[in-house]
């Protein structure tokens, strides 16, 4: 610890900052780190209300005029502050959720309220930059796709890092721990059509999370230069079914120009194949509802990028969402503003889509028919919504979701899956 660290610990910057420093030191002990390092930014997930404990914590943290020490973005909160009328839950929770979001803003964090801070050009850390991010999908994206370095900072520790500007030098902050130890390849029976399909990525993510757990894997054999939106879907699902904080995809992620690169030129512990049967089983497990009945379609988990919003508008092609179906797309307020400038928001709203910002449709009670069946293209949404909001889920590709939303019933296209 530096003399500055000791000063913070002793309360030189107030009781709240000293509390934060105690948590950072506790984390250092738990991870076996010998020293702390500086960070250049933080993404804080603690602003989502999970009960009175989350308010009690920020009250204690704010004691003594605590402020964040590095540029800090905020994750989703409990409700859409720009469209509060979309909230269908109880008033008291909404009030507490809003209060918590404002308390974090008051610490000096930027009110981005998005789970995809990497979509904001001025909030993206560069390759090799040391940061402290919360939110499991953002952590996976930050390490894997940006090549910036963060551990899985959970609630409390994310903001403790933001107000101290310090983290333990451990885990994925260190080069040697970013090495893949597991090589995953798609088996020969996985059809080319599926390999080229967006729908592969959330499903492959679910399998990746199960296979890798908390270890770092490299996925080999996909076409090069996969889009950020596909890698987002992959990482979000992997961080739901497992504790994946980092993965490599050869030819697509910056620390994996080749398998050897991802392995840091050492032998892997295991090389495993993923069969079409395993992918189909993972896909099927994501659906808890059967049949054609459809109440709602939920897209944008993690928050839709500008490219995705545009794609939804193009896929709708002037058609309207069916009167009996609610179609809710979640995105960040900054992405929404950019989409509005380009006329995309208007096109989506004219088609009958509702746009939700600052939160997510499986976090906040926003769906009219929350018990479903709700169709989604997100592995993460499908994974968490049954437990969180009690929704029956139908998982499908983005194209299936849009076609179903227009038709008013579940419409399937099994072609990429080899017909089953």
């Amino acid at each position, binding site marked *: 610890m530096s003399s500055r660290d000791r000063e913070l610990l002793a309360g030189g910057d107030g009781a709240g900052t000293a509390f934060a420093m105690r*948590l950072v030191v506790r984390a250092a002990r738990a991870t076996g780190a010998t020293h702390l390092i500086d960070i250049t930014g933080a993404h804080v997930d603690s602003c989502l209300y999970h009960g009175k*404990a989350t308010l009690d*914590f920020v009250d204690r943290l704010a004691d003594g005029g605590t402020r964040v020490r590095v540029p800090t973005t905020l994750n989703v909160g409990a409700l859409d502050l720009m469209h509060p009328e979309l909230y269908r839950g109880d008033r008291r929770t909404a009030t507490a959720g809003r209060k918590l979001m404002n308390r974090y803003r008051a610490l000096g964090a930027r009110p981005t309220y998005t789970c995809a801070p990497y979509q904001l050009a001025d909030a993206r850390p560069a390759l090799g930059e040391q940061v402290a991010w919360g939110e*499991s999908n953002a952590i996976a994206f930050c390490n894997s796709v940006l090549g910036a370095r963060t551990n899985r900072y959970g609630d409390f520790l994310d903001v403790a890092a933001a107000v101290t500007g310090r983290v333990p030098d451990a885990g994925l902050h260190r080069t040697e721990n970013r090495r893949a130890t597991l090589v995953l390849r798609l088996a020969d029976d996985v059809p080319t059509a599926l390999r080229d399909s967006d729908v592969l990525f959330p499903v492959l993510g679910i399998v990746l999370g199960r296979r890798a757990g908390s270890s770092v894997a490299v996925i080999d054999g996909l076409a090069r230069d996969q889009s950020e939106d596909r890698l987002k879907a992959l990482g979000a699902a992997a961080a739901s079914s497992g504790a994946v904080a980092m993965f490599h995809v050869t030819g697509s992620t910056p620390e994996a120009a080749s398998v050897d690169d991802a392995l840091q030129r050492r032998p892997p512990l295991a090389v495993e194949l993923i069969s079409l049967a395993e992918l189909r089983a993972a896909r099927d497990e994501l659906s808890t509802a059967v049949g054609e009945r459809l109440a709602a379609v939920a897209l944008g988990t993690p928050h839709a990028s500008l490219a995705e919003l545009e794609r939804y508008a193009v896929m709708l092609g002037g058609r309207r969402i069916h009167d009996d179906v609610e179609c809710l797309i979640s995105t960040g307020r900054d992405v929404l503003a950019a989409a509005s400038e380009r006329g995309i928001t208007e096109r989506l709203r004219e088609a009958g889509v509702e746009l939700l910002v600052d939160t997510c449709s499986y976090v906040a009670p926003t769906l009219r028919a929350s018990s479903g069946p709700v169709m989604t293209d997100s592995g993460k949404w499908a994974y968490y919504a049954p437990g969180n909001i009690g929704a029956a889920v139908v998982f499908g590709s983005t194209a299936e979701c849009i076609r179903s939303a227009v038709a008013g019933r579940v419409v399937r296209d099994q072609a990429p899956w080899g017909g089953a």
Partner: protein
Amino acid sequence: MGWGVTAVTGRVLVLDEPLSLWGGMDPATGRLIDPHHPQHGALLAGRVVFMPSAKGSSSSASVLAEAVRAGTAPAAFLLSEPDLILEIGSAVAEELYGIRVPVHVISPQRASVILDGSELRIGPRGGVTRAPRASDTGSRGTP
């Protein structure tokens, strides 16, 4: 902060698969609510919960702190690998409410000996032993 000064006891609950507390545990009831989990519906409150590893959401620290506040938290966690998210959730809960939920890593060899459904005592320094009495499930003793 007073970490590590008391022992806790509770009956062991071995989870067959990892669990994310966020989306996986309801702090209002202390039950396991992840429908993908084989032990969906199990009561976690007051138990010494063994997890092969933790997983999933970074919000689990908040869920643990809220469960401690609500009195529905497990008595302790035993893990086969360290998990910073549960560790910090536990640290914050202790600072805010003065209640300690130990989070300890135990070796697979040790796990196979003690994880047979018995009552366990987690000592102040993390030593895991069979509790002397089977009647005080979830109670919190002193050293």
